[in-house]
C-alpha cells in the first residue's frame, strides 16, 4: 500500500495547470515527431531536450515522457497508413496494419493500435508501480562493483545476443567506449586523447552524437531512398472506436500474453523490437487460422503494439532504477536526468521520491490523455506526411543543429553532429549496428568510473567482482551471455547427441 500512497502524491504533484499543459504540448510534439519521416522517438526527444533545460526536473520529465508516448503513438500512424515503420519496433505493426488500411479498415486498425498501446503501457506502468518500492530497498545494496557488473552485463548481452556480425558489434561498441574516454579523466584529472584541442576537453556529449547518428544520417538515408509516400486516408469517429473496442474482449488472451512478453523484454535491455516480433509470432502460433495473418487481422495489430509499448514503458524501470536505458529513447531521457543534475540509479528512489513518483504518475496520465488526443486528431497528423519532404528536410536539419548546440552552448558540437551524421549514414549502409555505439556513449564513462572506484576500494583486486552472491551472479551471467554463441552451440551439439535417433525431425 506504500506504493499506492506514493503514487497519489505523484498525482498531486502533477495537478497544476503548468504541468498539464506541458503534458499536452509534449504529446502533440511527440506525435508530430513520430509521424515525420527522418525523426523517430529517440531523435525527437533529443532535439527537444533543450526546451526543458530551464524547467524544474519534474516538469521536464513530464514533458519528455509525454513526447515519448506521443512518438510511440505517431509511429503507429505511419506504419498503418503509409506502411513506413517510424521505429524498428513498429515493423511488426505494418504486417497486418497496412493490409487493414488497404481494405478500408484504417480507422479500425488505428483504434486497435492506439488502444492496445495504451493497454500495454498501462500493464507495464502497474508493474513499475509495484516493483519500484522494492527496488528502493534493493538499491542500498548496490556499490561500485555491483554497478560495474550490471553495466558489463548490458554490454555482454549486446555482443552475445546481437544478430549482426559480431566483429561489427564489437567495433561499434569499442568506438563508442573510446569516444567517451575523450576529455578529462574523472578519477585522476589527466587529459586523455585531446591532442591539445580545447574543444575536445569537454569530451563527446552523447546527445550530440545521438542527434547526428539518428537525425542527420536518417535525413541522408531518407533522401537517398526518395520514398514516394502513398498513404490511406483515415477518419475516426466515436462509432468506429466503440465498435472496435467491443471486439477486444475476444482477444484478451493475445493482449495479456503480449503485455507480459513486453514487460519481460523491456526490462532486459534492447527488448522492445524483439518484444513486438515475439508478440506477433506468438499471436500467430496460438491462432486457429494461421494463414490469414498478414492479410489484415485485427489481432495482428493488437499483439505487436501491446508488446512494443509494454516494453517501451517497462524500459523506463531499469533506466530510473539502475541507470541502464532499456531503449534508445530511455537513453536520451537518462541523458536528460544527468543534465538536470539527477543521478539515475537506486538512490534516486530514496533521495528524489517526488520526482520518481511524479514520473510514474505522468505515465498513467500521459497515456490516457494521449489516447484521447490521437484518436481525435489522426487526420490532422496524417496530413503532415503529405507535406513535401523538401520542406521538412531542412527544418529537421535546423532542429538537429539547435538541439546539438543547446546542450553545451558550443559551436563545435554542431560540427561534431555533422560528423556523426556521416558516420551514422555509412554505418547504416554497411550494416554496422548503431545501438551498441549509442549504449557505449551513454554508459562508457560510468562503467569506467564504477570499475576504477571498485578497484580503489578493493586495492586492485579483481576478485571483488565475485565478492558476494549478488555481484558474483551478475558478473558470471555477463560472461555467460558474452560467450552465449559458443555455449549455445555446445548445448545444441549435446542435445543432438542425446536425442533418440529415430525421433529426429
Amino acid at each position, binding site marked *: 500500500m506504500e506504493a499506492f500512497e506514493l503514487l497519489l502524491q505523484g498525482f498531486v504533484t502533477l495537478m497544476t495547470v503548468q504541468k498539464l499543459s506541458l503534458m499536452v504540448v509534449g504529446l502533440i510534439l511527440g506525435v508530430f515527431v513520430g509521424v515525420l519521416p527522418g525523426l523517430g522517438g529517440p531523435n525527437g526527444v533529443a532535439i527537444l531536450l*533543450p*526546451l526543458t*533545460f*530551464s524547467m524544474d526536473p519534474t516538469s521536464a520529465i513530464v514533458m519528455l515522457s509525454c513526447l515519448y508516448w506521443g512518438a510511440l503513438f505517431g509511429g503507429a500512424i505511419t506504419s498503418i497508413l503509409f506502411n513506413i515503420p517510424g521505429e524498428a519496433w513498429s515493423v511488426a505493426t505494418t504486417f497486418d496494419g497496412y493490409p487493414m488500411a488497404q481494405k478500408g479498415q484504417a480507422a479500425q486498425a488505428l483504434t486497435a493500435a492506439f488502444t492496445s498501446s495504451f493497454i500495454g503501457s498501462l500493464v507495464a506502468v502497474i508493474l513499475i508501480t509495484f516493483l519500484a518500492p522494492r527496488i528502493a530497498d534493493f538499491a542500498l545494496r548496490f556499490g561500485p562493483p555491483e554497478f560495474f557488473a550490471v553495466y558489463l552485463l548490458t554490454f555482454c548481452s549486446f555482443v552475445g545476443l546481437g544478430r549482426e556480425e559480431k*566483429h*561489427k558489434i*564489437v*567495433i561499434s561498441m*569499442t*568506438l563508442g*567506449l*573510446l569516444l567517451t*574516454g575523450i576529455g578529462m*579523466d574523472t578519477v*585522476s584529472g*589527466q*587529459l*586523455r*586523447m585531446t*591532442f591539445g584541442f580545447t574543444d575536445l576537453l569537454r569530451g563527446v556529449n552523447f546527445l550530440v552524437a545521438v542527434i547526428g547518428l539518428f537525425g*542527420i544520417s536518417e*535525413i*541522408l538515408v531518407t*533522401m*537517398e*531512398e*526518395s*520514398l*514516394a509516400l502513398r498513404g490511406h486516408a483515415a477518419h475516426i469517429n466515436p462509432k468506429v472506436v466503440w465498435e472496435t473496442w467491443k471486439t477486444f474482449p475476444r482477444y484478451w488472451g493475445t493482449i495479456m500474453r503480449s503485455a507480459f512478453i513486453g514487460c519481460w523484454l523491456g526490462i532486459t535491455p534492447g527488448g522492445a523490437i524483439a518484444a513486438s516480433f515475439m508478440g506477433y509470432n506468438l499471436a500467430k502460433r496460438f491462432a486457429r487460422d494461421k494463414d490469414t495473418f498478414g492479410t489484415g487481422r485485427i489481432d495482428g495489430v493488437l499483439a505487436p503494439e501491446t508488446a512494443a509499448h509494454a516494453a517501451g514503458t517497462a524500459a523506463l524501470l531499469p533506466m530510473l532504477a539502475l541507470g541502464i536505458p532499456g531503449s534508445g529513447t530511455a537513453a536520451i531521457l537518462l541523458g536528460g536526468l544527468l543534465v538536470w543534475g539527477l543521478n539515475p540509479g537506486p538512490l534516486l528512489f530514496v533521495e528524489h521520491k517526488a520526482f520518481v513518483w511524479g514520473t510514474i504518475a505522468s505515465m498513467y496520465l500521459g497515456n490516457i490523455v494521449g489516447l484521447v488526443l490521437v484518436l481525435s486528431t489522426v487526420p490532422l497528423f496524417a496530413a503532415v506526411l*503529405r507535406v*513535401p*519532404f*523538401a*520542406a521538412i*528536410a*531542412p*527544418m529537421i*536539419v*535546423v532542429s538537429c*543543429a*539547435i538541439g546539438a*548546440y*543547446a546542450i553545451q*552552448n558550443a559551436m563545435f558540437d*554542431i*560540427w561534431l553532429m*555533422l560528423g556523426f*551524421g*556521416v558516420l551514422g*549514414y*555509412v554505418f547504416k*549502409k*554497411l550494416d554496422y549496428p548503431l545501438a551498441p555505439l549509442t549504449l557505449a556513449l551513454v554508459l562508457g564513462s560510468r562503467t*569506467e568510473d564504477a*570499475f*576504477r572506484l571498485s*578497484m*580503489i576500494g578493493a*586495492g*586492485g583486486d579483481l576478485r571483488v567482482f565475485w565478492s558476494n552472491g549478488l555481484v558474483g551472479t551478475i558478473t558470471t551471467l555477463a560472461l555467460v551471455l558474452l560467450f552465449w554463441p559458443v555455449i549455445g552451440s555446445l548445448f545444441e551439439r549435446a542435445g543432438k547427441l542425446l536425442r533418440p535417433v529415430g525421433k529426429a525431425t
Partner: protein
Amino acid sequence: MSQQNSLPAPEDDRPIAKSRSVDVVVLLLLLALACLLGWDSTRVGNAWADDGPQAGYFPFYLSVLMGATCIFGLTRLLVASGATADGFITRHQFIRVIQVFVPTLAFVIATEFLGLYVASFLLVAGFMWWIGRMALWKSVLTSFLFAAAMFLTFEIAFNVIMPKGPLEAAFGF
C-alpha cells in the same frame, strides 16, 4: 512527395562504389584511429598501478581491441573476395545525398558567421526553392515563418541561447 520525383530525371542505377570497398576504407580509417588513440594512451600511462588501472589503461586496451577487430574484419573482406559485390550507392542516389549534405554543410558554415536563425532561413528557403523546385514566394514565406517561430520558441519563450550574428545584433539581441 510529388516534388521529389521530379528531381534528376533518368534513373541511373549503376553503383559508383562497392560496399566492400567502402567497408575496407572505413575499417582502415578506424584502424588508423585505433593506432592514434592507442599511442596517446601509452603516453598518458596504460599500466596497472597498485590501486587499479591508470588513466590510459582502458583507452589503450580498447584501442587494441578495436584495432584487432578491424584487422579481423579486413582479412575477412579480403579473403572472401567477390562474395559481397553489392553496390554501396548508385550515381543517382549519390547525387541526392549530396543534394542534402552540401546545403547542410553550407548551413553549418553560415551559422558560424551569420548566426543560426539567419542561416536556417537561408537553408530552408534555398532548399525548398532550389532542390524542392517550389515557388520562390512559397519558399521564402515558409522559411521566414519557420525561422521566426524558432526564434520565438527558443530565444524568447524557453530562454535557450543560440549563436547569433550581425542581424540579431542590429535588433539588439
